[in-house]
């Protein structure tokens, strides 16, 4: 039973990440590889605030989201002229920079060794030490994220984001300063990724730079493309499929030494096949 709870927690965390990226990539058409970077900053911020300052989890999580929101805001100000592929490449630069910081700023991040003994969330003096308790929290935050993303998608704001995705120059002519809208959604999306990072840190109780590398972002991109871009239920479906798929592979009987690498082969294959035969994914409303 604990195994299934563990999987459900991972699904929840990755679903929050997928929803956050879907708001940016699915609705606005900005494919960002920086998801793992913002998740990492969120995770490190929460871990440091909990281990060094003994802050309450929810306060630490809120502060981490604000910190990442501010960083994302400043990054996107610099990115305001980047469109399409240039934006994607620029976002990859953020992951490279944050990885470097996580590894080298030893006094704060503890370098490659990472941060251990991160306490589990504490709710009014009640520590969520059991996995099923943590699952309740992660599902609650997932529902909250889903509602926020649904609200954005159904609002006039979401419609402007979709118009930017379709033809940014055309929507500008109708009186929109598109850079402001992109800035807003990049900030919101990054803050949500930070929330997933904070959850991850307190669930695993240990983080290291290895957890926030480019391949994590690629995994989340694969999730939203598989589930279907511009569809929040699709983002969750993609997360469920790609979190459980490697677990199913365990039953195939692959040696553990190659099983982990084999996952990446499968993610790559899924991406190639989707692009060839179903670019809108399972539930997608938008075709790249």
């Amino acid at each position, binding site marked *: 039973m604990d195994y299934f709870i563990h999987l459900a927690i991972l699904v929840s965390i990755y679903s929050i990440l997928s929803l956050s990226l879907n708001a940016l990539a699915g609705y606005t058409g900005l494919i960002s590889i920086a998801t793992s970077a913002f998740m990492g900053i969120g995770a490190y911020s929460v871990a440091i605030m909990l281990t060094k300052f003994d802050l309450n989890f929810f306060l630490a999580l809120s502060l981490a989201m604000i910190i990442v929101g501010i960083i994302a805001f400043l990054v996107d100000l610099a990115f305001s002229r980047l469109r399409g592929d240039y934006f994607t490449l620029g976002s990859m630069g953020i992951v490279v920079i944050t990885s470097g910081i996580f590894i080298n700023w030893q006094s704060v991040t503890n370098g490659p060794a990472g941060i251990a003994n991160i306490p589990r969330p504490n709710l009014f003096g009640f520590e969520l030490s059991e996995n099923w308790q943590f699952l309740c929290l992660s599902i609650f935050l997932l529902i909250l994220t889903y509602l926020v993303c649904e609200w954005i998608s159904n609002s*006039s704001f979401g*419609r402007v984001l*979709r118009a930017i995705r*379709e033809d940014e120059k055309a929507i*500008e002519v*109708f009186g929109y300063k598109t850079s402001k809208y992109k800035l807003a959604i990049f900030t919101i999306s990054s803050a949500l990724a930070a929330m997933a990072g904070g959850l991850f840190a307190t669930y695993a109780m240990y983080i290291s730079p290895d957890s926030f590398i480019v391949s994590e972002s690629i995994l989340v991109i694969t999730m939203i493309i598989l589930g279907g871009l511009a569809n929040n239920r699709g983002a969750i479906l993609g997360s469920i499929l790609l979190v459980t798929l490697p677990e199913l592979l365990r039953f195939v009987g692959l040696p553990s030494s190659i099983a982990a690498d084999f996952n990446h082969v499968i993610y790559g294959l899924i991406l190639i096949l989707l692009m060839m035969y179903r670019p809108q994914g399972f539930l997608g409303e938008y075709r790249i």
Partner: protein
Amino acid sequence: MRVKSLVKYFDGVKAIDKISIQFESGKITGLIGPNGSGKSTLVDLLTGFLPADKGLIFIGKHVGIKKVQPSKNYTSGISRTFQDARLFEQMSVLDNILVVLTKRSILSSIFVQHPKYLEQSKEVLKRTGLWDKRNELAINLSYGQRKLLGIGRALAMNAEIYFFDEPLSGLFPEMVITVKNILLELRGKGKTVILIEHNMNFIRELADTIVVLESGRILTKGEPSEVLAKKEVIDVYLGT
């Protein structure tokens, strides 16, 4: 709206060559000329789609500017259609209209949902005969319907100055009548209408003034009956 000595280069080639012109409100100005004469480029400059290299643009009583900021078109009351429609393809017909009706403020747009603008969009879509197609994706519309949606989107801006770039090409006769009525209605409301069109009968029938462009310059301008009878216009534009 008026422009003074407007110049635009493309890779060193002058696409617009010192054009000065005034567009009057409550009138339809026909902008004609052979392909490549600079008609669409002029519209692109006046709607901020492209920046001018030299010259000044005056909108209303504002001081002259070199580049129209497209993000200010909403407050300046400028709207347009595109020759190739440029619709928001993977959005519904209704959303193509709704997005133009929305208030230009991020904060209010986050808290505003669809119903507020539904009546206005219904009016626009009924006017263009697309209400029954409101839930279709724009990408699935026929060529003529795409043109009409582009026109509906321009109307939804409720602007003062409208640019229509070849709105009639590829339309069925009943669609042509719809567009004609829309243009006359705008003129009746005192709006400034600038119309690029190759259909001379249509131009003759609707335009109050015609401006003929050739190689980025104004060849001649005036009333349709006078202009279309001029030999240089017949030579250059009709090639006879």
